[in-house]
């Protein structure tokens, strides 16, 4: 893991908001999110289900459900150009070659009626105008790069003829087709069994290093975060809770939520005891006030938490969105 990010960010997200349509009106799934992605670095986005991790990724990629979601405000800038402000045709032309996304469920993200080779090469044909033959050669090459045996044969197979892990590799090959600078991996290993998870993770990291890509890795697996991340963004109820270098965030968490998350990792010492869990339920997104979203479950909550928490800088490049950040010194490591 490198010391700190340098240069201009490849992709920079400012004040991003995503809302989903619910029977009670538009519910804010993501509100006011800021972060940057730098070349050759990995940002892990951590949070429980419903914390807005996938909504963020989908908003960047432009693959939110067509009618059920909207982005009321925010800026997603690629090399300084705001994607959200562009006309759709231009957005399409810019987004594909820069950002690629590995979906959680490769089965759903691959068209069941087209051979995988065709789908991998489709981006190249759209953006680079490759011939059918050249595109197929590219697909075979990519299938080889992601470790699929006999890629030439595999290219003419259909998605259902692959196992789960192989299908995820196909998915990765498809996202690599345009040599993206940013790779968004939305829980890429959740649908896989543990041994395959490790292989896919290894593959993603190797590819990132070979290509100097920026990787945005969305997960709720704390162990994975510790292995892959340079920076960590912890999300709760669609807002940032804590952002900073992985070792300090995991080693000395500043936000009570991060702390509680890390404390809930099962460890050998806990054998025989109940697992430490965070009490209460995540909030209903439609009933979020302006105060700290974690307040009802937070052991440190006081009256001031009814006010929206400010971004409190702890060290360089590290922010904690909590009123009580300055109250006490960062506590000792919970993860060794």
């Amino acid at each position, binding site marked *: 893991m490198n010391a700190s990010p340098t240069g201009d960010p490849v992709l920079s997200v400012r004040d991003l908001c995503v809302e989903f349509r619910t029977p009670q009106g538009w519910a804010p799934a993501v509100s006011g999110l800021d972060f940057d992605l730098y070349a050759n670095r990995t940002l892990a986005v951590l949070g429980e289900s419903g914390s807005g991790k996938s909504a963020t990724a*989908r908003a960047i*990629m*432009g*693959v*939110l*459900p*067509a*009618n059920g979601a909207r982005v009321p405000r925010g800026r997603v800038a690629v090399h300084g150009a705001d994607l959200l402000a562009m006309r759709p045709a231009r957005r*399409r*032309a810019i*987004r*594909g*070659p820069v950002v*690629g*996304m590995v*979906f959680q*469920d490769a089965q*759903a*993200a*691959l*068209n*069941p*009626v*087209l051979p995988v080779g065709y*789908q991998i090469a*489709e*981006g190249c044909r*759209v*953006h680079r105008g490759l011939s059918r033959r050249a595109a197929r050669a590219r697909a075979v090459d990519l299938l080889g790069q992601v470790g699929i045996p006999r890629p030439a*044969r595999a290219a*003419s197979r*259909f998605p*259902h003829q692959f196992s789960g892990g192989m299908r995820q590799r196909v998915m990765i090959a498809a996202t690599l087709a*345009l040599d993206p600078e940013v790779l968004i991996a939305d829980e890429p290993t959740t649908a896989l069994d543990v041994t395959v998870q490790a292989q896919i993770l290894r593959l993603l990291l190797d590819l990132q290093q070979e290509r100097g890509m920026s990787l945005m890795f969305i997960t709720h697996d704390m162990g994975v975060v510790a292995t892959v991340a340079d920076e960590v963004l912890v999300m709760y109820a669609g807002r940032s809770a804590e952002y900073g270098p992985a070792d300090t965030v995991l080693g000395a968490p500043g936000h009570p939520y991060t702390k509680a998350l890390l404390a809930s990792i099962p460890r050998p010492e806990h054998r025989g005891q109940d697992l430490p869990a965070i009490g209460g339920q995540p909030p209903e997104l439609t009933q979020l006030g302006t105060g700290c979203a974690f307040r009802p479950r937070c052991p440190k909550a006081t009256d001031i938490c009814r006010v929206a928490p400010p971004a409190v800088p702890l060290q360089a490049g590290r922010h904690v969105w909590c009123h009580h950040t300055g109250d006490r010194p960062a506590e000792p490591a919970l993860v060794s």
Partner: protein
Amino acid sequence: MSAAVEQVPARARDTRRGVPWRLVLHALPVLVILAVAIAPEPLAGAFGNGDPHRCNLGNSRGGARNGHPFGFDEQGCDLWANVVHGTRSSVLIGLLVTAAIFVIAVLLGTLAAYYRGWVDTLISRVMDIVFGFPALVGMVIVLTMLGQRSVCTVSAVLALFSWPPMTRIMRGSALAVADRDFVRAASGYGAAGLRVMVRHVVPNSIAPVLVLASLAVGSVITAESALTFLGVGLRQPAISWGVQLNAAQLTFRQHPHLLLAPALFLSITVLSFVQLGEAIRRRLHPTHGRSVR
């Protein structure tokens, strides 16, 4: 140097490679029917009395006898020759109407599901209007106004009133597909609307409409007979199964063979088209059915 040679198992056949024998096999009955529709004479003359217009009133509604396997109709014409000659207009109307509503359904249904918004609203409301209109009354009015009862006009009027159900099913099926990740992904990385629709939406949502289309051929043929019954469809001396079924229902208690002969041909035709539709559906969707081995 003769190490153990690894035995590579024979590769599972890719169902999309080479000659689609299964499809050809399932298309065979339909091809035979089409052949009869184009050139009915050889089959009609198989029993020696191939002319549908050579009639003898003395044989009116007569039963089967040598050289006349289906017997005679009311005019004393050979029923076999009539039914075989009826294939042409019946199958032609069935195919024309089905083809028309299939094209309309796939086109409008996909557009409505992909673009939603005002495109969807417009298409859906027009469908509702046609749905709400009593189709039979509408067809009678239009055909009466046209005054002309050719295969073309009858087909056009049938199509005009029967496209909404199939379009609605296509729209629903395409709506379900349009929000799936691979469609969103394709448009997310930059494929244009037409490409996404043709490559991703239509192939994944067309199956129910194909099945419906294979069934529609039969129901269109019977609908044509209903129009004939109301006096606005084809009429004699035009020969169609609708005309024959219509003529038969007055006396079918005494002379059931008049009804059974065209009904038998109609059933065989419908069955053949259903077979073909099923085979096409399997071939379009590689994960379904037995075609993946």
